[in-house]
């Protein structure tokens, strides 16, 4: 889903840089206010884990896919920290030639801003529903996996809408990119489940949805209580 330079029109890239810049500013402000330095080592490690996971493509013939990780990060640390980590990963990748520098704003919007916010909200709704029928840890695993699947498909659809500005890319291609990402989304869901399972077992304190979380207060979105508080109320 990393769009290179030279494909999309400059006006669209400029708009996306504007939107992404604003969201980057808001997320940095949120981090300034809420995050304390106790979990800083985890931020670096998670960024590295996501970067490394994105290096490997799994086959989805005739194409392939890789983990994006935005829903995973949003469930763990909240959407603000999640989108910042994705932004850093995309920046390093752009420097290494994967995704363009001019398209950085657009790529950040699709995989960082949109995917983190929608993934977080969707996972939270699912988590609250699942929590009524099973325990918290199973609920977060299933909710994150399902949300990451749907967000992958939705983000591909959004990318397809953006690509409609490219001559030669029509509604059929929009359908194709969405359908291909249904299969890539399954991979995203499975990888999200597996990585989150490690953290559920090893360090549940860094999963913002869980009661024992040490980051739920930091991860909460303004105008809403933390996920744990919302569920308890």
């Amino acid at each position, binding site marked *: 889903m990393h769009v290179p330079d030279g494909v999309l029109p400059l006006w669209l890239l400029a708009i996306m840089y504007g939107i992404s810049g604003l969201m980057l500013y808001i997320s940095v402000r949120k981090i300034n206010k*809420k995050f304390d330095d106790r979990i800083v080592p985890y931020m670096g490690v998670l960024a590295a884990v996501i970067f490394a996971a994105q290096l*490997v493509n799994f086959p989805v013939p005739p194409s392939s896919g890789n983990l994006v990780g935005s829903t995973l990060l949003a469930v763990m640390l909240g959407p603000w920290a999640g989108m910042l980590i994705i932004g850093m990963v995309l920046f390093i990748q752009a420097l290494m030639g994967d995704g363009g520098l001019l398209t950085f704003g657009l790529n950040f919007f699709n995989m960082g801003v949109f995917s983190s916010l929608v993934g977080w909200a969707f996972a939270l709704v699912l988590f609250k529903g699942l929590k009524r029928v099973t325990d918290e840890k199973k609920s977060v695993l299933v909710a994150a996996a399902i949300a990451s699947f749907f967000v992958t498909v939705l983000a591909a659809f959004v990318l397809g809408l953006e690509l409609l500005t490219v001559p030669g890319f029509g509604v059929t291609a929009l359908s194709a990119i969405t359908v291909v990402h249904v299969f890539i989304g399954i991979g995203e869901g499975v990888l999200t489940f597996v990585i989150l399972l490690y953290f559920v077992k090893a360090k549940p304190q860094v999963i913002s949805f869980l009661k024992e979380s040490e980051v739920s207060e930091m991860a909460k979105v303004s105008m809403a209580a933390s996920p744990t508080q919302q569920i308890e109320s």
Partner: protein
Amino acid sequence: MDRKETIRYVIPLILVIAIVTAVILLGVASQNPDGFEWVLFDFAGVGEPEGGFEGIWSFLGDGVGVEIFTGITGIAAILLLGYGFFWLNARKTE
């Protein structure tokens, strides 16, 4: 941060680096274009852009060794960037 805690931070990182290195060395990763590239360039037939910025390591060329080197330097760079950025911006507890 105690020793046990440090190990919990380091294990996933080492594990991921080991898996990525093994996957590259064994050639297990898919060489197919990703979903976006396939739809745009193969399915829709839009011309692939040529030239432009190919990355800071493009002068090294291609090969398994180069892939492992660029992968590991990328992981180190993102680790430092992530740690440094959040350390600078997080509230200090002491």
